[in-house]
């Protein structure tokens, strides 16, 4: 790995923690304002009713659940990159693993907000918690929404712990250089890490086990989320392909989001030597693969609808392709399946402009995939008399904007106050004796 030295890595990463310029705080203030706007919209919705959004009969689920699935999907690649690629000893993951994990944790938090926003009576959300109560009622564990609660909270716990565990040696490095209050804070955060051999031995083992523990979650969480739909009987939802289809889609969108976040990060923090273009290229190559998988899933769904000889399924997919939401369908297909094919060209894979554009397009496409599924299924369900359409309202868009702002606000706060690249792993990789990278 070129001419990096441990000191250089430390300097590059720790430089990012220097007091930020006013520009940074300006951006943070704008994002905070956006977040507060979203919060205001939500409070308004709680007081007036869910009707301020665009949901109706038959489409009772709208952007709230679209965004929920979208953010859960985004949350996937963090753990994929940090855990699965760690187990596979894919060394190119090291520079982006920390940022990807951070993205995961914040994305899960954002995603977790949406079911609350979605509820008609959010103040009674504790009815879903399984605890002995005077109502003598227990949640219904056959409901996929209960699966969700278990899966998402597990995922949040494990990914947050994994993220934090990985950060401990880096926090100690910061502590060693910090002074004053910062020193006290980082001392607390680094849990008395001294870098003794014993600590390293336990740490490496623990991290490996965490990685092994987190790996099945990558598969399970989005499988469970997909069962929100797959276990419904709605035409366009009721399909066994949904679990792998959603997992592939999640990774697809997550990788795209990693690129969307990494490219500006690399530029702003001068990480060019750490997050090399090869790293980005590897992400792009993986996006080609996941793009093919989701493309296969789209085609497979349509094939099964035709093959089932079921008029309801057939009509549902005919309408998906040519009906009222055909534009959304074609945005989804083009952005998710066709656009990533540009990554076959080395020029596109190594050009930051291309990488950024395509990654954003894939994100857009994945958002529309959730729209097509979540809105398109019930809008054109079993009963033709009940068919109807849905469109989001300004309140919904405001809430959506607010959550996007919240996510980016959390992310920029993180990168200025925590090590956004894992110095430990980067340094490990320098030592060719220990590295499996090459």
């Amino acid at each position: 790995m070129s001419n990096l030295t441990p000191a250089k890595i430390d300097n590059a990463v720790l430089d990012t923690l220097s007091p930020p310029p006013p520009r940074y705080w300006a951006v943070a203030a704008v994002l905070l304002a956006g977040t507060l706007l979203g919060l205001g919209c939500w409070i308004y919705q709680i007081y007036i009713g869910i009707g301020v959004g665009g949901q109706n009969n038959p489409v009772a689920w709208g952007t709230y659940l679209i965004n929920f699935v979208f953010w859960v999907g985004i949350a996937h690649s963090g753990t994929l990159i940090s855990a699965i690629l760690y187990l596979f000893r894919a060394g190119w993951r090291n520079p982006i693993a920390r940022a990807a994990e951070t993205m995961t944790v914040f994305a899960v938090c954002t995603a977790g907000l949406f079911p609350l926003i979605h509820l008609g009576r959010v103040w009674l959300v504790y009815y879903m918690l399984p605890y002995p109560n005077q109502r003598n009622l227990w949640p219904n564990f056959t409901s996929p929404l209960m699966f969700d609660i278990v899966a998402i909270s597990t995922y949040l716990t494990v990914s947050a712990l994994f993220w934090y565990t990985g950060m401990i040696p880096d926090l100690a490095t910061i502590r060693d250089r910090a002074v004053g209050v910062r020193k006290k804070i980082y001392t607390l955060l680094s849990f008395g890490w001294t870098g003794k051999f014993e600590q390293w031995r336990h740490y490496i083992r623990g991290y490996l086990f965490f990685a092994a523990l987190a790996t099945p979650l990558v598969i399970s969480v989005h499988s469970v989320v997909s069962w929100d739909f797959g276990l419904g009987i709605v035409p366009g939802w009721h399909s066994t392909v949904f679990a792998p289809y959603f997992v592939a889609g999640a990774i697809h969108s997550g990788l795209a989001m990693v690129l969307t976040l990494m490219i500006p990060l690399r530029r702003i923090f001068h990480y060019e030597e750490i997050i090399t273009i090869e790293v980005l290229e590897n992400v792009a190559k993986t996006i080609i693969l996941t793009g093919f998988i989701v493309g296969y899933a789209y085609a497979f769904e349509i094939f099964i609808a035709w093959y089932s000889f079921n008029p309801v399924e057939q009509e549902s997919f005919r309408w998906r392709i040519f009906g009222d939401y055909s534009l959304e369908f074609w945005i989804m297909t083009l952005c998710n399946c066709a656009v990533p094919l540009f990554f076959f060209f080395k020029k596109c894979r190594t050009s930051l402009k291309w990488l950024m554009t395509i990654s954003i397009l894939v994100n857009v496409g994945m958002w529309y995939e959730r729209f097509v599924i979540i809105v398109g299924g019930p809008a054109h369900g079993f009963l033709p008399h009940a068919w109807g359409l849905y469109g989001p309202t300004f309140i919904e868009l405001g809430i959506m904007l607010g959550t996007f702002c919240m996510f980016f606000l959390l992310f920029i706060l993180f990168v200025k106050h925590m090590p956004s690249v894992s110095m430990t792993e980067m340094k490990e990789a320098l030592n060719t004796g220990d590295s499996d990278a090459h």
Partner: protein
Amino acid sequence: MDRRTFLKIAGIGSLSVAVGCTGNDEENLYSLVHAPDNMVTGKPSWYASTCRECPAGCGIIAKNREGRVIKVEGNPLHPVNRGKLCMRGQAALQGVYNPDRIKTPLVKVDGQWRPIAWKEAEALARERLTGAASDGAGNVFFISEVAGETTLAAMQRFQEAMAAAPPVLFEPFGYEALKAANAVTFGLAGLCRYRIDQADVLVGFGADFLETWLSPVEYSRKFKEMHGYRDGRKGLFFHVGPYESVTAANADHWLPVSPGAEAVIAMGCLHEALAKGRGDRLPSNVREAVHAAAAPYTEAAVCSASGVDAGAYRTMVKRLLAAERPLVLGQGVGGGAGEGLAANIAANLLNLVLDPDLARLDFIRRHRVEIAHARREVYGAFREAAGRDNAVLLLNNVNPVYSLPASAGIRETLERSSVFTISFSNFMDDTAVLADLILPTRLPLERWGEYAGHHGIVSTLQPAMGRLTDFPDLCDLLVRLGNGGRRSSGQARKQTYERLRRSEAVTGDRDWINVVQQGGVFTPPEEETFTWTFSFDCLKPFSGGLFRPVDADEALCFAAAPSLRFFDGRGGNRSWLAEFPDPITKVAWQAPVWIHPDTMTSRGLKTGDLVEIASDSGRLIAPVYPFAGLHPKMLVMTTGQGHAGFGRYAKGRGANPFQLLPAAVDPVAGGPGFLAAGVKLAPSGKRMVLAHTDGSKFQHGRKIAMSVAMKDLHGGPGHDHHGAGFGMHEFPMNLPLPEGYDPHQDVYPPHEHRDDYRWGMVVDLDRCIGCGACSVACYAENNIGVVGEQRVIEGREMSWIHIERYHDPDHMEKMIFLPMMCQHCDNAPCESVCPVYAPHHGKEGLNNQIYNRCIGTRYCVQNCPYKVRRFNWFEWDRPHPLPLQLNPDVTVRMRGVMEKCSFCVQRIKEAHGWAKNENRRIRDGEMVPACVQTCPTDALAFGNLADKESRVRRMVEDPRAYQVMGYLNTKPAVIYLRKVVQEI
């Protein structure tokens, strides 16, 4: 700190926290210290009365809880409606509880309405009346709706006291043409009743007897007695008319004809009948004269003049002539003035030729609406009033400014300073707003009286509720206005009683109480015979060769179709009626113009485009709705909307089709036309979104609204309940009972039902006419929110029963109306997906929605294949005093909660109470949900499916039985019976 100190502090701390908590103070919660003797809190009292929402006069029983009427149902003893009620009757409650009801007498000062005390208001009225009366005879004019005998007599006495002409009874739907036709053909200027139930072939020439015609609830019932499939047979019904009304949609065959050409078809039938030698029992001179008049109506001439399809016409003639008990109904109010008379005469002649005994016409128990004056006389009264120097015009529950064409000049008459107008209206409608003084009187649910929908019965009214206002009864008010201001009260009850005593309908006080309790005297009088007398005048319309219908030219023809929902407009301010979508267009709150798709394409219009329609009399702007069920030259608009006033639910909503109609009346009948020929259609360049509640009117190859051909029912391939596959159409019927479970298709074991109760419903699509009475009854019973036009457009209507209108996949020109409510599945998709068990499978098979549990994930509605669950998107607006109508037995749902049909679980619980008191099981049919109770055609049946002897269980054995989308294996407890289609 020692243990004691800790406990002290903890105790004080928790006490102070507890003291600090105060709940919300209840506002206005009073205990009933002195309850009336007969009132038990929580138990309803029922008061028999008579519905006055239209002139049909159905008997009602009004449910009173704690002093307020909360529901009206049909009086089962009443001969007109036999316990059933239409949607307008159900919505009578929204008259008394209307938020825009006038609260005090009002006087107009300098063009502004001012509240005024009753004493002063009466003094003012008296002053004007005595002034007008002393200025000369006949200066006081009284225009009233058709009223009961007591009120009528009071009005007549008042007019006599004022030395003025008797009151003029004005009904916008006055049936002048039918009366005139009866006068010339039968010698009786009245409205006979039709024994539709006794016919085997029925031919209608436009009479919309399932919607508004004469007595729709009665005729709906009788129609299905004749036309409902039973024992392998059903009657035949042909409807001839230029557009497909609800009545036409229920016909076995609707024959589209050019506007106004019904008479041509009827004469053609007459021609064919006489040619076949029918009518041989008629006097020979009559027969010959009729034969001569009908001579030009050969098949070819008929077809070319009316545009009817020759094959369909031939079939109709053949079946009509082959009938044993044929019956022909004339024109409804939807026709032209002259054409209506001709069609009614021709229909009468046809009845006469086919059956000279006229066995299916009842000339004795005629409809009361026959006492309405002809439109000519109504115009005359207004004209005369306008001509006087000092006139007083009294208006009782009429809205002529709205329901008469603008060119009739009613508005100008009312605006004249020489005419002092006193309105007795409770609402600031189009006419009342032009009055000078409003003296609101009690509404029918608040007063005494009697009103018999047809001759030969007595049907009483009594107050069914505590008083919301201090309004007097009209009878009292008239006495006060006429006697110089002496107090008078209780006149209506007294006069009704005395009148019934005089007519020997009531023999004494005890009998009076009995009569009032049962709602009237319904013993059929002795049969009287009627001999018709023929007048050759009746052939006059046909003297000039072939009868020419209105539109000889290429221009469009506009028809004002009587509305099932609003009648002549008097239902326009009832939010339930506006919220219920029109059965044909499925558009709520608005009244679009029906236009033929070809006309629409040729004019470059799109659905929802606003067009301006102009006739010689007026113009209106309305959105277009494409509908293939009308003659390409026609434009049709239902009546009832387009009020300039009439409260928040009516004001400024839609357009008023009456404004386009000609003011001219037919010279013979004196009646108006409801057809405007030669109207101009121009796009206005604007659009509006139609508040339609339907997605698609086609079934897209699914097993939803099914029909079966008659020949397949007997002798055809048998319907096996245990079909051979798991496909959509061969999937077996699975009852929501243990026997409906099969290890091959079910993973989970069946539910166990407590005490062998498993509630279920059977919907006979062959009997459903799509009238929507069930849906409105459900609004009344279950406190369903009214969402308004904008929310309907957004897809948020709350109705627990939708009447889904589908085209029959085997006969695309036919419609099937499918009432869709919660199917109470045994294997309910909604139940398994809710995280908090809000949809809960009850011990008696009901799919209960527990509102308190619901947190609003809306997963249940997503997963419901029938899409019958309704979410409370908002807190629905119920302006005071509408909340007084709410049923205290049913929760009012808050925002954020899912709701749906409960099979009226509150009624089931009540029935359990009765049964437990008597230590027995609930009897079959002992309780029914509100929808089943009111269905005029008995299309719905409710009962215990687990009981092998129950009516619903026996109906399930019908080979027509199926479950909507049953192949999803939801095991619905609502079983549908296919509509039976006859080959003709």
